[in-house]
């Protein structure tokens, strides 16, 4: 188990990490999700022991390892760039951590074969990394991290430089590989969809703070605040500022929306409604309310259409099934599914996230 206890990192007067506390269980897959410069890499460097936190402690299985050098910890790291020893064969690359650890030949052969099988590198073991595709190079780096049998494996956007489809394949394989070792895996990414596909647990980061940490699907469905909701949305979350007056959300030029039951904590006054692109539709249905909007542009993905809308000063995206090539600048009414709303109070805290399956 790896524990970060109110860890902060300040360098050159700039706070890179602020008061982060996390508990990562052994054998778990943890996703760090946040935009570029939100502190993902800084946090990983602290976990690895490459950097020392300015404040706070790092505990490994209850033992204080703050400031302990990375060489003394059992850590493996995989980066966005494909880092391998260029002059060694794939076999030697994978074997290198074992050789450093002084393992015997039989062990090395067994472990390399196992890792190569897991990552489907069998046919390439005698090649050098430069004669491999990007995907194969990154698999080699991953295999090296696996044979090291590290207690903590840090993956810093490992798939970012790969082709879309390759990324999809590796992403599907990774959780399987993870679940077989008992290590703690930490996976940094900027893409919400990647976090969802990986599953496990997710910590959302924004400006050096962890805004929420929990099971990935829960964080996605029930973000604790607006920042988390925005971090964990791709396409971006649609927002609608309104005013709560007793049992209704009201806004001039729009039909009132009934405040969902059980929202007793929300005080009257300004608030923000958040909803995802697929909660908007072109046709009314039970439980929807019409909202006027203007079409900016439509994107068609084959089976679905993303309609970019403007509602007053807000930019929205609507996702509808089927091909709808609506002309730009056309004014229309879109229908908002009021059953799946997120409500944020004036401080941006979620007042009640909808429950699963509601």
């Amino acid at each position, binding site marked *: 188990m790896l524990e970060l206890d109110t860890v902060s990192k300040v360098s050159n007067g700039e706070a890179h990490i602020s008061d982060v506390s996390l508990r990562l269980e052994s054998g778990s897959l943890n996703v760090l999700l946040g935009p570029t410069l939100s502190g993902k890499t800084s946090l990983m460097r602290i976990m690895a022991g490459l950097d020392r936190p300015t404040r706070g402690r790092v505990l490994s299985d209850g033992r204080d390892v703050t400031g302990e050098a990375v060489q003394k910890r059992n850590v493996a790291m995989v980066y966005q760039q494909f880092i391998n020893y260029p002059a060694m064969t794939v076999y030697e690359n994978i074997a290198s951590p074992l050789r450093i650890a002084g393992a015997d030949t039989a062990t090395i052969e067994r472990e390399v074969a196992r890792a190569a099988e897991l990552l489907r590198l069998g046919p390439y073991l005698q090649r050098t990394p430069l004669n491999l595709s990007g995907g194969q190079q990154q698999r080699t780096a991953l295999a090296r991290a696996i044979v090291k049998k590290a207690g903590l494996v840090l993956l810093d956007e490992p798939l970012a430089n790969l082709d879309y489809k390759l990324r999809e394949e590796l992403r599907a394989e990774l959780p399987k590989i993870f679940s077989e070792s008992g290590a703690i895996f930490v996976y940094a990414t900027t893409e919400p969809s990647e976090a969802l596909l990986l599953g496990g647990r997710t910590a959302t980061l924004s400006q050096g703070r962890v805004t929420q940490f929990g099971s990935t699907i829960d964080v996605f469905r029930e973000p604790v605040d607006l920042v988390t909701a925005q971090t964990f949305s791709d396409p971006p979350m649609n927002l609608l500022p309104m005013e709560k007056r007793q049992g209704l959300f009201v806004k001039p030029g729009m039909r009132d929306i009934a405040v969902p039951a059980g929202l007793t904590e929300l005080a009257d006054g300004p608030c923000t409604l958040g909803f995802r692109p697929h909660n908007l539709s072109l046709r009314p249905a039970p439980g929807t309310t019409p909202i006027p909007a203007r079409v900016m542009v439509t994107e068609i993905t*084959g089976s679905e259409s993303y309609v970019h809308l403007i509602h007053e000063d807000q930019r929205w995206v609507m996702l509808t099934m089927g091909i709808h090539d609506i002309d730009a600048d056309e004014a229309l009414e879109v229908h908002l599914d009021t059953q799946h709303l997120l409500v944020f109070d004036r401080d941006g805290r979620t007042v009640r996230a909808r429950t699963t399956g509601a």
Partner: protein
Amino acid sequence: MARIDLDHIRHAYLPNPSRDEDYALREVHHSWEDGGAYALLGPSGCGKTTLLNIISGLLTPSEGRILFDGRDVTGLQPEERNIAQVFQFPVVYDTMTVADNLAFPLRNRGMAEADVKARVAEVLEMIDLGAIAHRKARGLTADLKQKISLGRGLVRADVNAILFDEPLTVIDPHMKWQLRSQLKLLHRRFGHTMVYVTHDQTEALTFADKVVVMYGGEIVQIGTPQELFERPSHTFVGYFIGSPGMNVLPVALDGARARLGAQSIALPGAAGATEGKRTELGIRPEFIQLGTAGMPVSIRAVEDIGRHKIVRAVIEGHELAIVLAEDSSVPADPHVTFDPAGINIYADDWRVKLGG
């Protein structure tokens, strides 16, 4: 703005190509309409960047000609072709201000300063950079730098074509949505011929009117996003477009029915001559209904990815991905039915027409 004709173009990086495999780009013979938005989509090494470089003039093809509006430009340098290009990584002139960066291509061509000012102001407004027009480009974030590159690509109104080489690689997901829709909007407004290279299907499908799917140095299909989704002409297109991609199941054909193990599936029509060829049935995960009627499947895993669920099932010993709506659940005794409209039949990887 121009129509682009690719006339029997082939390209090999080797000096004396003899076999098909020697060519990085095999025979390409197409005509791209004036004002169209085209995306070249494919995995790395499929030849898409080679083709782009041939269009921009950075590369002269081994064989064939390239024409802009009927004029042969095969031997011309990039600067003589009157095109604009946006690269994968932001190219900005660090020491210039944002506005000067945009003005650079115009000033180089001797445009009057008043016109330069007006045009730059217009583009700055289009790409939302007005607020930092007079900041030095150095020290801006990658997002903003790439916006400047895009702006420089758009600033000349009279270009024959604007070429994009994976321009959103360095952009964060949120910004991608904005930039992509903005590009699309600008295309609608100004009608430039645009060619966009990417390995990302979402970018290709959302950006382009026509997507050119490339694989192994060949164009395997050119079509609208809808055509590529519903009628992939090659199993590679089915696999590469859509996530998860199309399920491809080996079947034996029997008139208007396909046999998959013990199951028999009704087809919309009978396939033509497929004797001696490997026959497969393609069905997208979106066209499969999971319920209690139809063919029995066993469920291996259910992945909840938020907007919907992906069910990993096994049918007659073959993997099958199924897309399930957000609020639905897997029945106790799972069966599937295939929507006939979503069924395609392939012989040796190429789609065959199903007659009535």
